[in-house]
């Protein structure tokens, strides 16, 4: 009986050691993973819960949208802060981006539909990602292309230039189009990368308007 008790005690001790080692290992890896995630501060594509499609997960979700001040096509300074109290869709796009061209008429339509409720789109042109600062001709062409594109598409909302200068603040945007939906308090409530449907965009606008 005494021997049985000793064996049982030793077994439980070994079991406790295993459990502790397993827990410590799990805890360590959790912390490392969290550190990595915090350090990355970059949006990423992850599988949707049901599988199949990839959802964009932004590090800005639920956080205040980083403020910025950029020139619009006419050279006027426009800041995000001046839209506080409105729901805003910040749409990063470029003229060379086919999917951006597809969604632009949807944005025009939705902007006109919801403008009366306090909604605005800010189109942020990220034209010259690989242009060096000294390439004046390249920048001039990029700006001219943006102006021509906006005129052709009859875009009624502000279009801002040099989106590359703020893309890092928005999670390092490697893919376009990328959109951030900001509510009236200035918080990012949704973000998308790549072409989504017009109804998905409208759903996010409604969320931003808190309908």
């Amino acid at each position, binding site marked *: 009986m005494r021997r*049985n008790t000793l*064996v*049982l005690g030793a*077994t*439980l001790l*070994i*079991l406790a050691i*295993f*459990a502790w*080692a*397993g*827990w410590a*290992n*799990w805890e*360590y*890896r*959790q912390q*490392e*993973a*969290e550190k*990595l*995630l915090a350090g*990355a501060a*970059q949006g*990423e*594509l*992850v*599988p949707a819960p049901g599988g199949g499609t990839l959802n964009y*997960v932004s590090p800005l979700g639920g956080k205040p949208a980083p403020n910025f001040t950029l020139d619009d096509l006419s050279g006027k300074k426009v800041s995000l802060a001046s839209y506080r109290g409105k729901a805003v869709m910040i749409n990063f796009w*470029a*003229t*060379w*981006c*086919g*999917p*951006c*061209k*597809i969604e632009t008429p949807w944005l025009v339509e939705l902007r006109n539909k919801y403008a009366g409720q306090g909604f605005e789109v800010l189109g942020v042109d*990220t034209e010259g*990602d*690989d242009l060096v600062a000294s390439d004046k001709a390249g920048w001039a062409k990029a700006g001219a*292309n943006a102006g021509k*594109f906006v005129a052709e598409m009859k875009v009624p909302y502000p279009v801002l230039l040099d989106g590359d200068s703020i893309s890092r603040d928005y999670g390092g945007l*490697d*893919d*376009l*189009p990328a959109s951030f939906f900001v509510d009236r308090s200035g918080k990012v409530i949704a973000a998308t*990368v*790549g*072409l989504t449907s017009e109804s998905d965009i409208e759903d996010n606008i409604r969320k931003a308007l808190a309908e």
Partner: protein
Amino acid sequence: MGRMNWKGTCAGIVLAGLGAFGAAEAYGQLISNSPRNGSVVKTDAVQYLFPEQVSVPAGKPAPVTLHFRVAQGLHINSHTPSDEFLIPTTFSIPDGMGVRLIDASFPPGVIISLAFDPKTKLSVYTGEFAIHARIVATRGNHLVEGKLRYQACDQNQCLPPRTIDVPINVIGK
């Protein structure tokens, strides 16, 4: 018999403990390898394949065929894209490398349309493609860094334009 049961029970508990440890270890691996927690590794959309080295007669125009591969699932605009806003694929050799690019001949693009916009036809390169360049090299051994500029997309999104190095060892004889 009772002693056997104790031993069996104890062995079972130890094995269960080992199993639990293994499971915790496996979960730890899953966490650290999950794409949610690691940065996404992105490779270049276009890879330069070959040649690494060419021998050409010094001072005379010579043909060089450069081979590239576009990553699976992506396409890049051809040299003559179908829309004025699209960025064409171009090749250049910077000055001062002892090798001058006379001209470059690009393959015709493959005409595709994408699911999100079936009406629009795009002229693109996918998979492997080759550029036929004509160069003139001075006598000697030159490590040339040619430049390929392209802009890649997949079905739903586009990557910013990129310029990659095309390293070629040109021997002018």
